[in-house]
Each structure stands twice: as structure tokens, then as C-alpha cells.
């Protein structure tokens, strides 16, 4: 379980990005973090994955713990070995490396060869298109395929907790739906997921619980179902007016009432 307590983070000693954030990602659950640009979502993930220092950020107070290990003092490599793996925002696949090399790069933190082979089989099973294109350079994949590759690359490290930074960014609605299914499937296979999103529809669709970040603070939290009913989330993230019915009745296919028998 990932637990964050009273986390304060600043950049360059001046800019406060997180102000007393607390949240939990229980084992086997999907937790969504919603928030607009500048809310501190990326900072949160950087703090967990240990890349905060690369951005001259610093934890002022509070703690980030995975199980009983304090992640605040770990470097990215150690964090990966503990089973906490991040898919970066904007996919950031290695465009000059082939698909297969990208996956191998993702498995670098994983010393267990058998686990790596299992992970690769799982990735190709989940994303058959990656196996078809394994000899192609990453840069030649479509946006959706690149996102699949970015997720597959992270799965190569056999994560216990997967951190996803805006996987829907810049993708077509149909692909976003697929990403949602992929997240649900990864979770079914036993990996906890922390999903940072601006696309609340997808995120709340797959998450068990959710938090809303607002200028570095948690402004709302609760079960995903409850949260999607609140006025604020409806208005800000789901694009509905609060008093409109949330679900429109979809035309149902009529059941065949009787079978024509000869």
C-alpha cells in the first residue's frame, strides 16, 4: 500500500507545488487523481517515483511510504526495484529505439530473467500490435500505440504499483476507452494503479477511489462513484450541469420476444 501523509513539496526553494497532501493507494485498487493543469499532479508522481530531484524539487515535510519503505529518499532506480513504476506524461517512448528495445529498456530495473520473460509475454498478449511491430522504431507508432508501448514498457518491470501520468493526453476518445480497459485489466491481474488524469470520465470509470487536487491541496476525496455524483466534479471535470441527469437513457436494443419457429 502506498500512503502519503501531509506532503509538502517546493521547487527551487520557493514555488510550493504540494501543500499537505495525504492519500492512500490500497493494494489491488485503482486510485484516480483528478486536477487541472498546475494542480500538482505531476509533482505528486515525481515525488513517488524519485525524479523530483531532477526538477530541483524537494520534500519539505510529510512522507511517502510504500509498504514500510520510505520512498522520499530513494532514487528512481531503487523505487523501480521496489515495484513502483511510472509511465511518464506524454508517453516519452524512445523514438530511435525499436519497440522491442523499448520494452527491454523497461525491463532494465528487473533483475529476475524469468520474471522479465513472463512480463514480456504478458505485454505482447495484452498489446498484440506491439508484437507485430516489435522491429519498428518507436517514433513510427501512432499516438495510441505509443501509449500502449509506454504502458507495456512499464509493465516489463513487473510493477506492484503502476503510476500513470495522463495516459489519455492527446488521444482520440475511442483510444481513451481502450486505455481505460487496459488499466482495468492490469488491475485485475493484481497491480495497484495510481491514475493521474484530466479526463475524469475515463478515470472515474475505472477507479475505486479518487482524489481531486486543487492548487496543491486535496479538495475532494471519496469513492469514485460518490465523487462522480458531486456537483463540483460534475461541473469541472465531467462537463455536465449539476442539475442535468448524469446518465442519459441509452436506447436499448430490443430483445427478441419470440423466436420464429417453423
Amino acid at each position: 500500500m502506498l500512503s502519503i501523509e501531509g506532503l509538502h513539496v517546493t521547487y527551487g526553494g520557493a514555488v510550493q507545488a504540494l501543500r499537505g497532501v495525504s492519500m492512500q493507494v490500497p493494494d489491488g485498487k485503482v486510485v484516480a487523481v483528478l486536477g487541472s493543469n498546475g494542480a500538482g499532479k505531476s509533482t505528486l508522481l515525481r515525488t513517488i517515483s524519485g525524479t523530483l530531484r531532477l526538477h530541483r524539487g524537494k520534500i519539505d515535510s510529510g512522507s511517502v511510504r510504500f509498504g514500510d519503505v520510505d520512498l522520499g529518499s530513494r532514487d528512481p532506480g531503487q523505487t523501480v526495484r521496489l515495484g513502483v513504476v511510472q509511465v511518464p506524461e506524454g508517453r516519452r517512448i524512445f523514438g530511435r529505439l525499436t519497440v522491442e528495445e523499448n520494452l527491454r529498456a523497461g525491463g532494465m530495473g528487473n533483475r529476475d530473467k524469468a520474471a522479465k520473460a513472463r512480463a514480456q509475454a504478458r505485454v505482447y498478449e495484452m498489446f498484440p500490435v506491439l508484437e507485430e511491430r516489435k522491429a519498428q522504431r518507436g517514433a513510427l507508432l501512432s499516438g495510441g500505440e505509443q501509449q500502449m508501448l509506454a504502458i507495456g514498457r512499464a509493465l516489463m518491470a513487473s510493477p506492484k504499483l503502476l503510476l500513470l501520468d495522463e495516459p489519455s493526453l492527446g488521444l482520440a476518445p475511442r483510444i481513451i476507452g481502450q486505455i481505460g480497459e487496459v488499466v482495468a485489466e492490469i488491475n485485475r491481474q493484481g497491480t495497484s494503479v495510481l491514475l493521474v488524469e484530466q479526463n475524469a470520465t475515463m478515470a472515474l470509470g475505472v477507479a475505486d477511489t479518487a482524489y481531486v487536487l486543487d492548487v496543491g491541496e486535496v479538495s475532494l476525496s471519496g469513492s469514485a462513484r460518490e465523487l462522480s455524483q458531486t456537483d463540483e466534479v460534475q461541473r469541472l471535470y465531467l462537463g455536465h450541469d449539476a442539475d442535468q441527469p448524469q446518465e442519459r437513457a441509452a436506447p436499448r436494443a430490443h430483445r427478441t420476444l419470440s423466436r420464429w419457429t417453423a
Partner: protein
Amino acid sequence: MTQFLSLLLNGISLGVLYALIAMGFVIIFKASEVVSFMHGSLLLLGAYAIARLSGPLGFFPAILVALLITGAAAIVVERLIINRLRGAPVISLAIVTIGVDIILLTELIRRIGSDILNVPHPWGGDSFQLGAVGISQNRLIAIGVAGVLIALFFAAFKYSNWGIAMRASAEDGETAALMGIRQGQVSALAWVIAGVLAAVAALFLVGSPTPGVTPSAYAVALRAFPAAILGGLDSVGGALVGGLLIGVAEALAAGYQDQLLFLGRGFSAVVPFIVMIVVLMFRPSGLFGTKELTRV
């Protein structure tokens, strides 16, 4: 024609040695974003170690120890200086390597003095005749050894975990870090390999037709610079092509010196730099270099 073929063969033998040195520059640049100006003194260190140790240890053990010494010197510089300055501007790092180079070079020159240290290559100074085309045995062996090393190097770069880690972290360091790739390790290994390659080049560069180890061996590494740069500083394939191009151009200029006399004696020594300037005028990022080398 015979003269031309002979010069070509000698040029290639020189070129593969330049390529070994230039590939070292390139992987250091890719792994640590440092243009290492200390290759000259590393090369001289390798040559000096082989010459001094082959008496007490015997020739082949001396080579082994010299390779270790040069590799160790490279990694010490990387760990003690370069790694701690990560994130410093590229220019500052380059100047730091110049500083280290001058310190090491000064010490080596002091030790070598005005002597010419002899390296007792078992293959001696004999030359090998292939029909009418002649080449020193030393240089012929150099082609073979360097060819094998270059092939191994390319295979490692393409297929090994180190190669993939290196290419991944050269392309996007932060993302590579998120995969658990340790840039420090990748960089340290790149320096060791570059140091060892320079020492291998040194082994052959101080043999026939060169008389032995003198501080002038240092200048050879300087001529490998244009090889790396005209190939494109971030391309290992470019380093190989650049090395061969420079080697052949230099050998031809030396061989046809009499016809080129109007340019002055010793013109061949500046040919590598002229080739580099001409290539860069038409292809500013080198023959195979990535167009934009600046990274945010």
C-alpha cells in the same frame, strides 16, 4: 596504381585506429554529454604503460595491465569529477577535461622526457608484401584487431543491455531513469570502454612505422577528433566512417607529398582538420549526426 593501393591500405590501417579513438569520444558524449578532450593523454598513458611494463612483465601481460590502467584512469576521472558535475554546462565540462588532460600530459611528458620508449612488439618492424603493395605487419595486425573490436563494439551497442541502456538514456535521461536505468553506471562503463579503446589504438600507433613512444603520440588523438566530429558527434557509425576518411586522406596526403609540395612539407598532419572543416561546411551536424544536439 601500386602506390595508390599501398597508401589506401595504410590509410585504412590508420583509419581504423582513429575510429577506435573516435568511437570512445562518441560514447562518452552520448553517455555523459561531455566532449572529452582528455583522450590524447589517455592514449599516451596507455602507450607509456605498455612501453614501461613490457620489460618487467613481458609484452602480452603488459598490454593487459596497460588496458586496465587506462580504463581505470578513465573511470577515476568520470567518478571523481564528471559524475559530480552532472548538469553543469557542456562547455564547463569540456574545459574540465582539458584541465585534466593538461595535468596528465604534463606528468607523462616529464616521465618520458626526451627519450623514445621502445615497445617490443613481437611482430617487429617487418613489412608484409601483398604483391607489390606493402604494409607494416604492425599495421596489418592493427586492421585485424581493430576490425574485431569495432564489430564487437557495434554488436554490444546494438544488442547488449548496456547498449540499449546507453541509447535510451542518451535519448531521454529522465525517462530512462524511470525505467531503473542508472545513468551513472552507463556513463562509467562508457568511460572505461573509451579508455580501453584508446589504449588499444595506442598499442598499434606506437609500433612500426612509428619509432616508439614519444609525447607526439598525443597528437594522434587530436586527429581522431575531426573523425568523431565529421561523422557526427553522436553517431558511432559516423565515428567509424569519419576515422577511415581521415586516415585515408592523411595517408594519401603523406604519400603524394612531393606532388603537394606547393602546400608545404608536413601538409598531411593538417589534412584531417581540413577534411573536417570542408565536411562541416556542407553538413553542419556531421555526416551521420542528429540534426539537433541541444537537449532541454
